[in-house]
């Protein structure tokens, strides 16, 4: 069953700007499905998250939750939708009211939606604290956010979302403000709820590593300046990216292995990823290593590539010719210079990277 449908959503914060924040976004999330929104800062992923949570009203387009247009919901139905879609924000330091105790912050929603009464509230709250791996004591409920660590705060934020028994959770960069050592624990906690309660997830992140871990068996939407440039099953998109932007983003990610980091080194990636999006033709054509006349004049539609993967690129096969899979590394058979002689012959520059032959790994 489709839980959430985003139908042709376009959004502008500033009506006069030439480029909308989101342009013709289509997205559907089934019950028990996880969809990740990936892209750099400013690509519109958080705005889309706020729109599906009902925090921002889109300029155009429709959001349907369980088949009903959320703009038309009134009264009890509206309240029920409000409860069913919960958001966990990026920054646990600003998402919790510093003047409210944890008990008050968590209790408000439960009382509002009739999930607890004054009499049962404390029992409910303690049960929720236990579920999110926090100290389930009355003392903890009396604490204030400043007395908690970042990881504890994020658990409180998750508790607040989970306690309302939602069907869809919008998780916006939930681990980016946390120590690396704590990220997995928070992701595992969300995964536990995903498993136990068959929740739908819209998981927003700029970090493909975190996305790969969290959305196993799910889907990824790669966004670039308000446009979906690629989407498909997680492993498909990460293992076999078909849009050059996805490929470059994957290449840009630091990896925790000095040998692989050295092999993957490619100064062109950062250069390619800079610069304004194009107002004409393909939005990525200013940065794309493959851009041709056609790309500058026409907007490539999202095209089906089989296996549920789609890319908005006129030349979705070219990325494949670029390199080895980005998720592995290991020794290359053919190191050194790659040429642009294949394909149509008029591709822009390719990356030139030192191969393993030019270095000597000790030990």
């Amino acid at each position, binding site marked *: 069953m489709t839980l959430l449908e985003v139908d042709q959503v376009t959004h502008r914060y500033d009506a006069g700007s030439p480029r909308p924040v989101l342009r013709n976004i289509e997205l559907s999330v089934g019950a028990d499905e996880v969809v990740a929104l990936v892209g*750099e*800062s*400013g690509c519109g992923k958080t705005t889309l998250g706020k729109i599906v949570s009902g925090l921002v009203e889109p300029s155009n387009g429709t959001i349907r939750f369980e088949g009903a247009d959320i703009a038309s919901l009134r009264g009890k139905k509206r309240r029920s939708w409000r409860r069913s879609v919960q958001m966990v924000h990026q920054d646990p330091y600003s998402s919790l009211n510093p003047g409210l105790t944890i008990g008050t912050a968590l209790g408000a929603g439960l009382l509002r939606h009739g999930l607890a009464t004054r009499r049962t509230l404390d029992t409910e709250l303690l049960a929720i604290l236990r579920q999110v791996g926090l100290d389930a004591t009355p003392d903890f409920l009396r604490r204030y956010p400043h007395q908690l*660590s*970042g990881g504890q705060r994020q658990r409180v934020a998750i508790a607040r979302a989970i306690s309302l028994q939602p069907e869809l959770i919008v998780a916006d960069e939930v681990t*980016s*403000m946390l*120590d*690396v*050592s*704590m*990220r*997995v*624990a928070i*992701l*595992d906690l969300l995964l536990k709820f995903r498993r136990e309660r068959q929740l739908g997830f819209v998981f927003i992140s*700029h*970090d*493909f*590593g*975190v996305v*790969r*871990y*969290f959305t*196993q068996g799910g889907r990824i939407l790669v966004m670039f300046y308000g446009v979906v440039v690629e989407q498909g099953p997680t492993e498909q998109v*990460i293992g076999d990216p078909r849009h050059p932007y996805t490929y470059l*983003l*994957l290449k*840009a*990610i*630091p*990896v*925790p*292995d*000095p*040998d*692989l*980091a*050295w092999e993957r080194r490619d*100064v062109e*990636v*950062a250069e390619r*990823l*800079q610069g304004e999006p194009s107002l004409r033709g393909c939005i990525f054509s200013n940065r794309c290593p493959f851009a041709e006349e056609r790309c500058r004049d026409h907007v490539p539609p999202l095209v089906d590539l089989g296996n549920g993967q789609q890319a908005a690129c006129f030349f979705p096969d070219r990325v494949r010719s670029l390199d080895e899979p*980005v*998720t*592995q*590394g290991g020794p290359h058979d053919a190191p050194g210079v790659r040429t642009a002689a294949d394909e149509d012959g008029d591709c822009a520059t390719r990356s030139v990277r*030192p191969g393993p032959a*030019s*270095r*000597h*790994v*000790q*030990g």
Partner: protein
Amino acid sequence: MTAVGDGLDRPSNNGVAPPQGRAGVKLVEVDGLTVSFGEGSGSVRAVEDVSLSVYEGDIYALVGESGCGKSTLAYSLLDIVPPPGRISAGDVRVRGQSLKSLPRKELRRLLGAEIAIVFQAAMNAFNPVITIGEQVEHILKAHPEVFPDRQEGRAYFEHLLELVSLPPERIWDSFESQLSGGMKQRVAIAVTLLLKPSVLVLDEPTTALDVLNQRLVIDILRDLHETLGITILFVTHDLAVVAELATRVAVMYAGRLVEAGTVREIFKSERRHPYVEALINAIPSILDRGLTVHPIGGQVPNLAELPVGCRFAPRCPHAQEICRRIEPPLLADDEDHLVACHVVNHQLEVPAR
């Protein structure tokens, strides 16, 4: 560029082969440093008995979780530990000169010429009501010793902006509010380099940046290291950034150094501190092995209630009885790779037969 002892034998730009071992100019020496907050029985030691040396040409990473003391250690290199924190034991030497022994004025001059820091909240480092250019003018005016001719200083700043991949003419007349977070971070790096320090210290330079800006900062720092020959010390919790950038690494846990060595020793050696091992195995990454990560159980200890023995023992899967009694010493192997772990160092302590 000198002394890139990272064990990777990376080809350097100017063709100078990295020298073997730890030869070269010792720029910063931390010797038995303890930084305390508070007095008497209520005091906690944010940094405890830490020794390390940064050589010219190093890209040195100081790694650990929140509250492990890594930022405090970095601040003590510039004598800017925020009160009530104070250096209660040990010393920091910069180019051989002890910070303790120097009169205030000379200390300022030494540090001003040698070390500069980019703070974590670099986005908030600028005055919002005057342009970046005016702020640079202020710095040049206050330090005529570096650029007697201010035009020359301005030209150098513009050169630095190019090195950090920013358009000079646009930045000079900008207010900070006109720049993105990633751009501000890079302007802050350029401003920090203006007075030509020998050592650039950066506190969490990639935290809170998106993937693109992280990649830019990594590439830029590597580039600055090569083109300006600058020595870099950066504080981070992100081991992926360490693997990409650092040549040498020191890992801290609850105020103490638990492991130090070349970046390859930290990531690849058989002999590794269980904490470092756990940290590396806790990083979700795009690598296939990133799918089988494990969180580190338990919590970082409260510095006011430290466990007896090894501070990591309560969370350590390999902890033995001795770990809960005696604090493990930091022991080096032949390559000067330091590890503070009873279990890992057991073989070192056994006399050769």
